[in-house]
């Protein structure tokens, strides 16, 4: 079967993803472009005996090297093997979109322009003459609407048809000034009957645009000596005419003029009433006084949804994995293998899956904010504030996500272009207490402040974390990541009704990515932690306890002895040994060895902190943060000041193993992970120390 590779290119917010969704119902395959953290989506399907593969390239306003997305798109178009470009154009923003089209024409590949959002354009009274536009650009133009699916079938037909024709080359006609110079060079090449693989016009253009590789090649040709003065004169003419010696700028201006001309000639407005819904909505949503409160309210709503509604399926998942673990023990027995599978693997994976409802709801909310266009308003509102701390308006997205889970938060930092801005954001995401830290806070707040005050204390913990994060960002900006700010130039797209199919797709993709990334590493980490907390086995100790348990008269005595055994086993394990050995490091913070061990197991995942405390206070590991007896034990055993200091430490130190791995991937280097470890641990230590001392003084 004939194979057709198509690159889908367009500016951001032109409905590219929606178009790819309405072209084919086959599942999108989502991965990464090699070596970078930019998402690559592609879809394959058969149509009329042709196997079509469409690769959705990242949205880009132009083909410069401004953002990583732009670099990826540019490199793909320059180096990869593909048969055709489909340029998706927002019909309601014709001139700006055609600027990218002019850049794409230069690749001299088969291309189809898909005029998307025609339904919207019609509503705004716009009429586009697509045939004339096709004549001007030298490529076919097809009107489509991804939202209503109009014209989508025609587009696919056109793709197949067009692929059967011979390619005649694209034509981009420049202003007379440039065309004259092109003619001069072409004429000379014709006179000399120069042997060239490239079309003379293309060659002439490359020479005028000072294309390095072309110069290198031409340099070895005998006609170079004669050609050189012609080029020199041509360039001088252009410099004079444009009043600049920057050739890129000259050609940019030419393309802008071409795009403007093409839009002018083909766009007719019958009424051209610009629908001002966007401005009306904006007058409320980015209002100077109400804008931020409205935003905070929406965020509050999203969080309520994430945690309140999310807790329902979480209970089911929890119950499911507990029974699965028990079932596994009935198959593999109570021995080492059964324990490895049930307590290590199943419990570990369960801990990851447990957060799936949170992640799904949170990403649903974020996708909703993004696709409606509200997210850029948020960046607009908040940039002034975030910029003061060396952050970027867009840092807001990963930071807020950080309250849910650090893994997706690290992943969403990709929106930041400048490496420094992205790194600072990545470094402070951990300060935004993630969902997994909540059980620890609930336990300690409940134990020391009582149910009435616990809610306020929780709120204070989150706020203090965020404030510390902002301060840390400022410190990093001033001392570590010095240098120029990323310019803040961002489109404020029109408000649009979201496509639920598209949102659903985004959510599913993110959920799978989370499961895959976190799942594999959490699994490995849980097995490791399981091993460290179960070995070396002290047979003598187990033996002596077992005789005692057998001799026990009442069930109560039996349980308490079993719990004692668990505690003794953990104490003798590698983990216990490490905990005891490192106890002096944490003694200034008021932690005993048990709290130290809990913190260390917490490196695997924060929810483990609570279950470790449960084991160490000899209650067995079947405890959660709401467990009354654990709260009781903690209140009895841990001094108040130590508890405060413990909360601060948990607030600041490394989120979890899975997040750490994702951090290393997103920051681009394990070196940064080492920095993150040192940075967060030392900040956590210092802050906890201060908190401990102050609390001691106040008591």
């Amino acid at each position, binding site marked *: 079967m004939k194979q057709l590779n198509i690159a889908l290119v367009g500016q951001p917010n032109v409905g590219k993803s929606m178009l790819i969704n309405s072209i084919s119902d086959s599942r999108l395959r989502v991965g990464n472009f090699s070596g970078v953290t930019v998402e690559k989506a592609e879809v394959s399907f058969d149509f009329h005996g042709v196997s079509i593969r469409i690769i959705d390239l990242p949205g880009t*306003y*132009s083909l*410069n*090297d*401004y953002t990583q997305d732009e670099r990826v798109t540019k490199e793909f178009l320059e180096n990869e093997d593909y048969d055709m470009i489909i340029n998706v154009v927002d019909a*309601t*923003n014709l*001139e*700006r979109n055609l*600027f*990218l089209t002019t850049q794409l024409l230069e690749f001299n590949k088969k291309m189809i322009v898909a005029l998307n959002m025609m339904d919207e354009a019609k509503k705004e009274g716009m009429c586009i003459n697509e045939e004339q536009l096709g004549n001007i650009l030298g490529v076919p133009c097809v009107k489509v609407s991804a939202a209503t699916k109009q014209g989508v079938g025609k587009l696919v037909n056109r793709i197949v048809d067009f692929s059967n024709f011979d390619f005649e080359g694209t034509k981009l006609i420049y202003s007379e000034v440039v065309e004259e110079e092109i003619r001069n060079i072409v004429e000379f090449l014709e006179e000399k009957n120069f042997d060239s693989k490239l079309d003379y016009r293309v060659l002439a253009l490359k020479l005028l645009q000072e294309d390095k590789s072309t110069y290198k090649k031409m340099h070895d040709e005998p006609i170079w000596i004669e050609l050189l003065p012609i080029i020199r004169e041509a360039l001088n003419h252009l410099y004079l005419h444009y009043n600049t010696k920057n050739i*890129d*700028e000259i050609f*940019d*201006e030419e393309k*802008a003029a071409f795009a403007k001309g093409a839009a002018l000639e083909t766009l007719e407005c019958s009424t051209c009433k*610009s629908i001002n819904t*966007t*401005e009306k909505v*904006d007058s409320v949503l*980015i209002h*100077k006084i109400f*804008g*931020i409160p409205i935003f905070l309210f929406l965020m509050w709503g999203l969080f309520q949804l994430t945690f309140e509604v999310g807790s329902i399926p979480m209970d089911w998942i929890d119950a499911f994995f507990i029974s699965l673990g028990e079932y596994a023990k009935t198959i593999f027995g109570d021995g080492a293998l059964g324990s490895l599978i049930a307590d290590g693997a199943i419990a570990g994976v369960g801990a990851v899956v447990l957060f799936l409802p949170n992640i799904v709801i949170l990403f649903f909310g974020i996708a909703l904010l993004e696709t409606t266009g509200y997210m*850029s308003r948020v*960046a*607009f*509102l908040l*940039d*002034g504030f975030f*910029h003061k701390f060396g952050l970027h*308006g867009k840092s807001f997205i990963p930071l807020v996500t950080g309250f849910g889970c650090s893994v997706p938060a690290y992943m969403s930092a990709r929106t930041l272009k400048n490496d420094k801005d992205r790194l600072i954001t990545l470094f402070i995401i951990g300060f935004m207490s993630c969902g997994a830290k909540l059980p620890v806070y609930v336990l300690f707040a409940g134990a020391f402040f009582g149910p009435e005050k616990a809610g306020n204390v929780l709120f204070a913990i989150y706020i203090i974390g965020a404030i510390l994060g902002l301060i840390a960002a400022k410190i990093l900006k001033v001392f570590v990541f010095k240098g120029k*700010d990323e*310019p*803040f*130039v*961002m*489109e*404020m*797209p029109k408000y649009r009704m979201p496509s639920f199919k598209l949102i659903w797709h985004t959510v599913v993709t993110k959920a799978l990515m989370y499961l895959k990334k976190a799942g594999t590493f959490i699994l490995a980490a849980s097995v490791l932690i399981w091993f460290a907390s179960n070995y070396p086995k002290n047979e003598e100790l187990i033996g002596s306890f077992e005789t005692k348990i057998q001799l026990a008269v009442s069930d109560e005595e039996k349980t308490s002895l079993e719990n004692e055994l668990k505690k003794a086993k953990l104490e003798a394990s590698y983990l216990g040994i490490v905990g005891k050995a490192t106890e002096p490091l944490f003694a200034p913070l008021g932690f005993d060895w048990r709290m130290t061990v809990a913190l260390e197991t917490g490196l695997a995942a924060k929810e483990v902190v609570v279950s470790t405390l449960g084991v160490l206070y000899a209650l067995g590991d079947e405890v959660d943060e709401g467990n009354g007896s654990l709260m009781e034990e903690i209140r009895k055993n841990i001094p108040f000041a130590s508890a405060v200091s413990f909360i601060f430490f948990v607030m600041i130190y490394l989120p979890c193993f899975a997040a750490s791995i994702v951090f290393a991937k997103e920051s681009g280097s394990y070196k940064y992970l080492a920095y993150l470890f040192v940075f967060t641990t030392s900040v956590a230590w210092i802050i906890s120390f201060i908190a401990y001392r102050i609390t001691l003084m106040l008591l």
Partner: protein
Amino acid sequence: MVTLADLKAGESVKIINVKADKDLKQRLGSFGVRKNSIVKVVNHSIAKSTIEIEVATTKIALRAQEAKEIEVEAL
């Protein structure tokens, strides 16, 4: 010299020079913010730290810092 940062919301002007470095200039250019374009200031955020402008049918947000690099004249 009057720059984009000096304008009030609702004012329309013509850009006469974009002083920014190459990266920013190209970025602005790809949005249609270049010499001779007509732009309208739509909105300011608190303390004028961020400015929303409109070029043709596109709305763009930029910082006051960047807006200072764009010289304009009255229509």
